[in-house]
């Protein structure tokens, strides 16, 4: 059977016709039973998130937080919230594809997710066009509730605008003038640094940018970057990085001993997700901000949350668990307040609503649907032989939220 291409005897038309038919039957066969039976009394949330690859850890945390929230709501006699999950593999085109499947087929009332910012933006576009509310608890881009924000998008995760402003507030209290900016070469890194820098130049006009360094996501060897920055001798190195890069970067800080000469700022540097893998190899003299720690703030609410989470999943909650948890709580409260499962009414109820969270009061701002929660700042140091976050303070939401005017202006452009 040498020839399949050049074989003239069998009839092309016949062949093509039969293939076309096979293909058509195959694909239309799959679409024959779109019977998603939904109990209309319950609200159904479709979660699109990244459950494969390097970012899977965040999706798992936020999902568990969300599950805890809806369980607590139901236990208190509140509305029943159902959910289904879909894995987008960190690919934005998969995110929208699943979002469509969830809305059109699964008939979900709400969408939620997704760790990939590009995915969040793509889903939020779909949400807007189809009037399906979308709770973003994974994408940190400031565009989601900023320039690309709309009535149907809510964010229960502090975005890069907030992180940047918090960092700027922290740094403005310190004497550094010559600043080197660096980060992972992707949206999160760029956005944190851009926001931080614009806020810092407002708060402290005499700062000077010495240069910028950007490394690719997944970089394993940070020594050439650190060595190059060290030779420029800035007062402080400001870093926007996250995920797996964060741990590797901290290791390189320790190995090169950079922080003995130059202090470093990085968001989530003292997060357990960063410090736990590092063990006694964590560098000191690294400062940063953090939205949530399981031991800070040291309040009864936080302790209760940690205990409940631990009981359920046998591990301590990380920040993303809080974001998912808040997503569930805001939704549950809004459904109750709206007294209906009508999406528009729930949106109205969610706008500007406030809930109690482990970190204090959290508000979904009416104007931009961005959650406002306090944030801690501190520095890593060795205390009694143990490397931990010290000198922790709280920044109130008022200090770190971007101005509503600026956001509305960016949307109108």
């Amino acid at each position: 059977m040498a020839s399949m291409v050049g074989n003239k005897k069998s009839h092309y038309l016949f062949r093509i016709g039969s293939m076309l038919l096979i293909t058509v039957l195959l694909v239309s066969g799959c679409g024959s039973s779109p019977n998603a039976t939904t109990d209309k009394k319950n609200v159904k949330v479709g979660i699109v998130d990244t459950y494969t690859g390097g970012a899977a850890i965040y999706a798992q945390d936020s999902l568990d937080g969300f599950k805890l929230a809806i369980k607590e709501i139901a236990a208190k006699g509140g509305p029943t919230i159902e959910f289904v999950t879909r894995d987008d593999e960190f690919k934005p085109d998969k995110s929208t594809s699943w979002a469509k499947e969830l809305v059109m087929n699964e008939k979900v009332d709400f969408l939620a997710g997704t760790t990939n910012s590009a995915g969040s933006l793509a889903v939020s576009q779909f949400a807007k066009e189809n009037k399906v509310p979308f709770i973003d608890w994974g994408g940190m881009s400031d565009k989601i509730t900023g320039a690309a924000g709309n009535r149907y998008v809510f964010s229960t995760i502090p975005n890069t605008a907030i992180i940047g402003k918090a960092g700027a507030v922290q740094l403005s209290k310190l004497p550094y003038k010559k600043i080197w900016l660096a980060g992972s070469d992707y949206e999160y890194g760029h956005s944190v640094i851009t926001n931080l820098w614009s806020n810092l130049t407002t708060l402290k006009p005499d700062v000077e940018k010495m240069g910028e360094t950007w490394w690719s996501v997944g970089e394993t060897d940070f020594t050439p970057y650190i060595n190059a920055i060290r030779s420029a001798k800035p007062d402080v190195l400001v870093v926007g990085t996250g995920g797996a890069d964060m741990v590797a970067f901290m290791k390189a800080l320790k190995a090169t001993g950079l922080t003995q000469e130059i202090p470093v700022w990085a968001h989530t540097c003292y997060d357990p997700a960063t410090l736990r893998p590092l063990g006694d190899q964590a560098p000191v003299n690294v400062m940063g901000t953090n939205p949530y720690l399981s031991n800070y703030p040291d309040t009864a609410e936080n302790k209760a949350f940690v205990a409940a989470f631990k009981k359920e999943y046998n591990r301590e909650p990380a920040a993303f668990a809080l974001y998912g948890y808040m997503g569930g709580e805001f939704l549950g409260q809004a459904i109750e307040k709206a007294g209906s499962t009508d999406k528009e009414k729930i949106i109205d109820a969610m706008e500007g609503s406030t809930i109690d969270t482990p970190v204090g009061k959290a508000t979904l701002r009416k104007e931009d649907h961005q959650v406002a929660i306090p944030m801690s700042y501190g520095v890593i140091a060795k205390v009694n032989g143990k490397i931990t976050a010290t000198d922790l303070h709280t920044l109130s939401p008022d200090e770190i939220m971007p101005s509503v005017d600026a956001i509305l202006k960016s949307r109108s452009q």
Partner: protein
Amino acid sequence: MSTNSSSSLILQEKFRTYLGLGMAVAGILILLAIPSLISPYYVYLLATIFTTALLATSLNLVLGYGGLLHLHHAVFYGIGAYTVAIIMTKTSWPFAIAVVLGPLVAALIALVIGWFCVRLRGLYFGMLTLALGQLVWAIVYRWNALTNGDNGIHSIPVPEFLTSVNSVYYTTLLVLIVSLVILYLIIKSPFGLTLIATRDNPMRSESLGINVKRHRLTAFVIAGFFAGVAGVLFILVERSVAPSLLFWNKSAEILIMCLMGGLTVFMGPTLGAAILVVLSMIVGLYTEYWLLVLGLLLLILVLFLPQGILGYLLKSRNNKKPSMRGEN
């Protein structure tokens, strides 16, 4: 005896012609009627399949018919999509220009990349397509001002009449059919026959006066053009684009589609695209381990069904009938 069998053969041929025509018409009729029969999600899914099918078929022009180890075809898909996205969001040019430029820019990039690659053979060709393709990806990923970086471009405006699921469906269907017809004509043209000849035996082709490199480059550019067309369709279907569209694992996905349907059968990639898109959807409903499933599926394909599903079906059909040519 011989006249008898030959006349019955002619009858059989005629019958098959009509049957084939009938089936093609039935298929098209079903496709036309489908949006009113199934839920919008499946209409959308079909539009995705059409887009992907065009992409895979365009790859197969160089891969299956040209025998070139083209490992990074998604680049041209992405370029086509990004061209439209950038024109529609950053300029005030009309949609028609964006639609025309999308495939043309893709073809242009294919010309540049192909110009370097056709000088090499076999694995080298493949590795160079991969390297240069990744270079394009890195530029798209990094050029924030133009492409918005890894955030991608979203809410891309398209004309009002192209926004509903059904109109997208019919548009992609129409473009797919037209493109497939053109690609089919190309394969059946002297150019296509010569392309197959350069695949079977490049050295012999050369000594018959065929400029093999130029021929391959032409095929590469044509494939790039149609990948660009698919990229334009992608924009219609999704109205957003991100750099992951031109990362190398996207290209691997297309390769698997071609392999799954059958590299030597014209409709193979279309079938492969349909199967893979549908399967990823169905598997994704039950598990987050779609990639594991895909890996196992690919393993089975390579080991037991290297000629692909359609290739296998055609082969077994031809084997069942005693071949007419063997009697001579």
